């Protein structure tokens, strides 16, 4: 190996190879970029097709993502209803309240604690029975229990999280009666898990299909230039030197495709917001439908770049050893 490397420099010496402007690593990058840009300009049609394919592929995936993200945020809102309530038979004094509140908040998973006094409980009861207040005539606040309403952190809202929180809660002296709507929590969570699994599966299939389509499209563009690959290899180009411009080209195609698809998605989203009100039962503008968060947009951009790059890489493998 070493012996050959020595030979190699000897081989190049007789060419009186001058020190070059485009020499060194930076110069090479310049060459590769120029090469990639020239390739794109010489094969406009093929490149438009490739970028179009990547755009559509990413648009499908990101549309799916948009729906998924909005469903997740709706689920997040619903899960606010997962609440643990601690009931007491008597009205608590202020110091008692504070002591208990401190202990509860010290538990892992507790987000906030609200005390509901007897008067407050009666007020709520009344508002719920609006129009039928007569039913409550003669009911005095003393009949109703007082309570602490505890809302949980996001991570503790699944079945296991709630149960472990409740068992920790019950160990606090003075707390005996705890309710948390077991059945509802369980159902809600199993629905959420099912939805996530389904989404993950569908998303996975989509991604695989997209990779397949894009890499085949790129394969076509490289197939069209296999002569060039062969000639470069025959005049002594290293495989990296042959591949680099194609990889860059793939990268550029991927980035262009992802930018266009994000722009299209945003257009679709805005169009939906402003026109869907006429056929939906709710107003989409005020319903809290959101566009993809910035991390996701960045993710789509990276995914596009990666898609172009990997698509080129795998396609090159088939042609590089001519």
């Amino acid at each position: 190996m070493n012996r050959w490397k020595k030979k190699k420099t000897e081989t190049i010496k007789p060419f009186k190879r001058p020190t070059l402007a485009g020499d060194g690593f930076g110069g090479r990058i310049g060459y590769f970029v120029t090469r990639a840009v020239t390739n794109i300009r010489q094969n406009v049609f093929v490149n438009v097709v490739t970028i179009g394919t990547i755009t559509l592929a990413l648009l499908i995936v990101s549309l799916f993502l948009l729906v998924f993200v909005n469903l997740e945020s709706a689920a997040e809102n619903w899960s606010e209803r997962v609440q643990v309530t601690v009931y007491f038979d008597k009205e608590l004094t202020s110091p008692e309240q504070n002591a208990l509140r401190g202990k509860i908040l010290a538990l892992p998973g507790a987000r906030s604690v609200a005390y509901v006094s007897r008067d407050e409980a009666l007020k709520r009861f009344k508002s719920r029975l609006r129009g039928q207040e007569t039913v409550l005539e003669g009911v005095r606040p003393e009949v109703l229990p007082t309570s602490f309403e505890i809302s949980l952190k996001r991570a503790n809202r699944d079945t296991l999280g709630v149960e472990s929180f409740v068992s920790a809660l019950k160990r606090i002296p003075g707390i005996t009666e705890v309710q948390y709507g077991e059945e509802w929590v369980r159902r809600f969570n199993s629905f959420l898990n099912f939805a996530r699994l389904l989404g993950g599966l569908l998303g996975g299939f989509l991604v695989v299909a997209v990779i397949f389509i894009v890499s085949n499209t790129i394969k076509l563009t490289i197939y069209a230039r296999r002569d060039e690959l062969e000639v470069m290899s025959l005049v002594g180009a290293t495989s990296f030197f042959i591949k680099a411009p194609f990889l860059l080209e793939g990268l550029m195609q991927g980035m262009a495709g992802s930018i266009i698809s994000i722009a299209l998605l945003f257009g679709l989203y805005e169009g939906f917001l402003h026109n869907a009100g006429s056929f939906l039962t709710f107003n989409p503008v005020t319903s809290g439908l959101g566009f993809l968060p910035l991390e996701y947009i960045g993710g789509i951009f990276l995914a596009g770049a990666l898609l172009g790059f990997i698509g080129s890489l795998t396609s090159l493998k088939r042609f590089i050893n001519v």
Partner: protein
Amino acid sequence: MIQLHNVSMAYQQDASALDNINLKIGKGEFVFLTGPSGAGKTTLLRLLYGALSPSRGQVLIDGQNVSRLPASQIPYLRRSVGVVFQDFKLLQNRTVFENVAITLEVLGWGRADIGKKVMHILKQMGIESKFNLITQRLSGGEQQRVALARALVNDPKILLADEPTGNLDDANKNQILSIFREANVRGTTVVVATHDRRLIEQSHKRIVMLNKGEIVEQMEKEKNRDDQAI
């Protein structure tokens, strides 16, 4: 410069393209490889630039065992070997200049140096006025010279040519031959595969005759002037 020891090459198991070839070509030699179609001329050349690896035996180029060279080192071998292919292998939709420049681009030369060197070699080939034409639009002889320019532009140690005069008329043949001679005079080892008898007769060089994958005859023309009836 070139040594083959007991080299056999079989594309398929039962049919061997080359059979037990022993051949030594010294530095600065000019050798014609001849024989009928299918004798193994092209296969032999392909072994010399690392496009094939022999089934048996050893191929040494400049002291390097090509058959044991890892794939990553093959490009460096090819940089010191210029090859003119039977079908030229020019990029049809590129200009003459671009076709020749590719050899130097691969070596990492800068643009200005490539320009000078390429125009210089095109002038030697007598096609400098066509530098900006698409190769598709050149005649056969002109394309041949572009292929030669591409092979010679980095002054290779070895020049291999496969049927370089295939479809050319006499005037073109002579020009091509004189380009080979010039390269040879400058120190390049030249191996030309051809079945063109007249080409061989016109020159006084070493001849290696192949038939059915075996070397059947070797002769130095200068020593055997009377014995020209090959």
